[in-house]
């Protein structure tokens, strides 16, 4: 390639650089700066090196929150991925039903996140909530997510599945619609059952969108904050205290900016690491290599 006589081309990149600097680089550097200092008062701080990292890595409450987080994300993926694919397979393929189902399906995605928490608080209340009251009158059990950890988890999972499965379903549906008709015709001619058609035609062809759905659902569920915060506030006890809730407690609740910053960086590294591992693994599956 021919070299340009000057470096004016860099000016074109400058706006992007400025935006990224304000949206990502500067905040990240600020966090890194906090993580190595003990801030005693505004304008008064001591350099402490990696002490906060060491302390946070040994914090048993962080460990508990981390395992809880893995359990939560694991359940989310195990339930939402197959359910989303099933819904996508069941959706109509032509006619007015298509737009009707797609819009209906997308409704939960349009509701603000903290509103969702409020909706489910009311929905599950044993006295006035449709679900809570229904369970009590039909089964005689008092369903209470504010008192019993299991109930809190069940409510949280139901809310999460209701809220986000549509995203998986919409992505899977887009993937399904993109499969050329000839593949189905060939499968028919080859005498394939609908199960083998799913296994050897639909699933491999949906790989791209399902990878995206998987990563999005992993990251989002791993970073979940607003919904459990509104619904349970991390309780009962610490049973629904996820990483983000614990982080906010430290950083804003106790105003421990140093440990909070160290925590954020660890958190960030975990999400990045797992997203990378999952992405690589899913790519390999697509190429038919052993994971």
């Amino acid at each position, binding site marked *: 390639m021919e070299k340009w006589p000057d470096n004016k081309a860099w000016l074109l990149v400058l706006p992007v650089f400025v935006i990224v600097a304000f949206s990502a680089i500067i905040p990240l550097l600020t966090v890194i700066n906090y993580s190595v200092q003990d801030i005693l008062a505004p304008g008064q701080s001591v350099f402490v090196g990696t002490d906060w990292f060491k302390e946070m890595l040994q914090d048993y409450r962080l460990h508990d929150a981390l395992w809880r987080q893995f359990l939560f994300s694991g359940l989310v993926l195990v339930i939402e991925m197959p359910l989303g694919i099933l819904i996508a397979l069941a959706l109509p393929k032509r006619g007015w039903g298509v737009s009707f189902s797609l819009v209906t399906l997308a409704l939960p995605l349009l509701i603000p996140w903290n509103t969702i928490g409020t909706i489910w608080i009311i929905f599950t209340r044993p006295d006035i909530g449709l679900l809570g009251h229904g369970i009590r009158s039909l089964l005689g059990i008092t369903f209470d997510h504010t008192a019993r950890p299991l109930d809190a988890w069940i409510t949280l999972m139901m809310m999460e599945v209701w809220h986000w499965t549509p995203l998986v379903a919409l992505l899977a549906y887009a993937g399904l619609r993109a499969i050329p008709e*000839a593949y189905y015709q*060939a499968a*028919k*001619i080859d005498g394939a059952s609908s199960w083998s058609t799913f296994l*050897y035609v639909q699933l491999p062809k949906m790989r791209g969108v399902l990878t995206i759905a998987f990563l999005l659902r992993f990251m989002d569920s791993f970073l979940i904050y607003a919904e459990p915060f509104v619904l349970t506030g991390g309780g009962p006890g610490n049973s629904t205290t996820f990483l983000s809730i614990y982080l906010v407690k430290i950083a804003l609740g106790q105003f421990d900016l140093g440990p909070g910053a160290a925590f954020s960086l660890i958190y960030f590294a975990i999400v990045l690491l797992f997203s990378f591992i999952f992405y690589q693994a899913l790519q390999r599956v697509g190429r038919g290599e052993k994971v």
Partner: protein
Amino acid sequence: MARIELHEIAHSYHRDPKGPEDYALKRIHNVWEDGGAYALLGPSGCGKTTLLNIISGLVVPTKGKVLYDGKDVSKLPPEKRNIAQVFQFPVLYDTMSVFNNLAFPLRNRGMDEGSIKARVLEVAEILELTPFLNRRAAGLAADGKQKISLGRGLVRSDVAAILFDEPLTVIDPQMKWELRCKLKEIHEQLKLTFIYVTHDQTEALTFADKVAVMFEGEIVQIGSPQDLFENPEHRFVGYFIGSPGMNFLECTLEGNRALIDGASIVLDDETAAKGRGAQGKLELGIRPMYLEVNPERGNSAVKARVKGVEDLGSYRIVTLNVAGKVLKAAVPEGKNVPENVAWLSFPPEWIRLFADGWLIK
């Protein structure tokens, strides 16, 4: 193996077809003999693929019946018809190896693994896919992929016919030729009925023993490549087959002469006699390669203006203007082409007369 009969087939994609313009296929009534190599040739949108899908069972025709060896299969789904189809783009199970792709139709039919293996190896040998059997199908080049699609049809020993829907569209020109030869070879070896859909006349004429030319939802002629070239039964066949296509001139008859805007062309007595008995708009047709271009006025010559000359290497295409009509002539290399005014002669044995588009017989 089977003899495929199409009985008064018509098809419309409209739910409630009214006039003939609603029909993608107007009336198809013909027989594909067992073991024949057929090509279905026509421009895009003429109904070739629809007809193919009716034969394979992917489309149920609005009217008419499909018979395999005399048995009505019109209502049977494709998997019950023992038919195989190769599509325009290679259709593979890309997570599977080449071996598993070829074995897939047999496994679906519950054959035992031992027989499957023997059969797959046999077919892979015919298609020269043996070295790739353990490779993933997705990793092969386009021609290899098309061979796999074909192979999934060939492995089934009971297959009645193999249908090809423009199978060479995505193949490189050099590989196209090789694959076409391979197809012909396989046809001779296995004696299966092959029906090959294409819009490329070279492909159709080199592959098939019999070519069916389709135009606006109808088969206008079925014949050997030579028939189509020398005796096109419809002006569309004349125009579509051959490059450039047949020349057509509107004419009237007077005795055994055809009159075109003052110029007269001598016909042989038989052609003239048949022409006089015909009704409708009369046209005279002649292939560019039979049209003679002379610098001097000879006997019964027609005056023309030379508009342009294209050199194609082995011959030249001369564009001529006769009484406001454009004609093309193929002139052999080495023969002199006049620069401005030329005299054309029409050899009577190569002149065909058409009434309302159809050859007068």
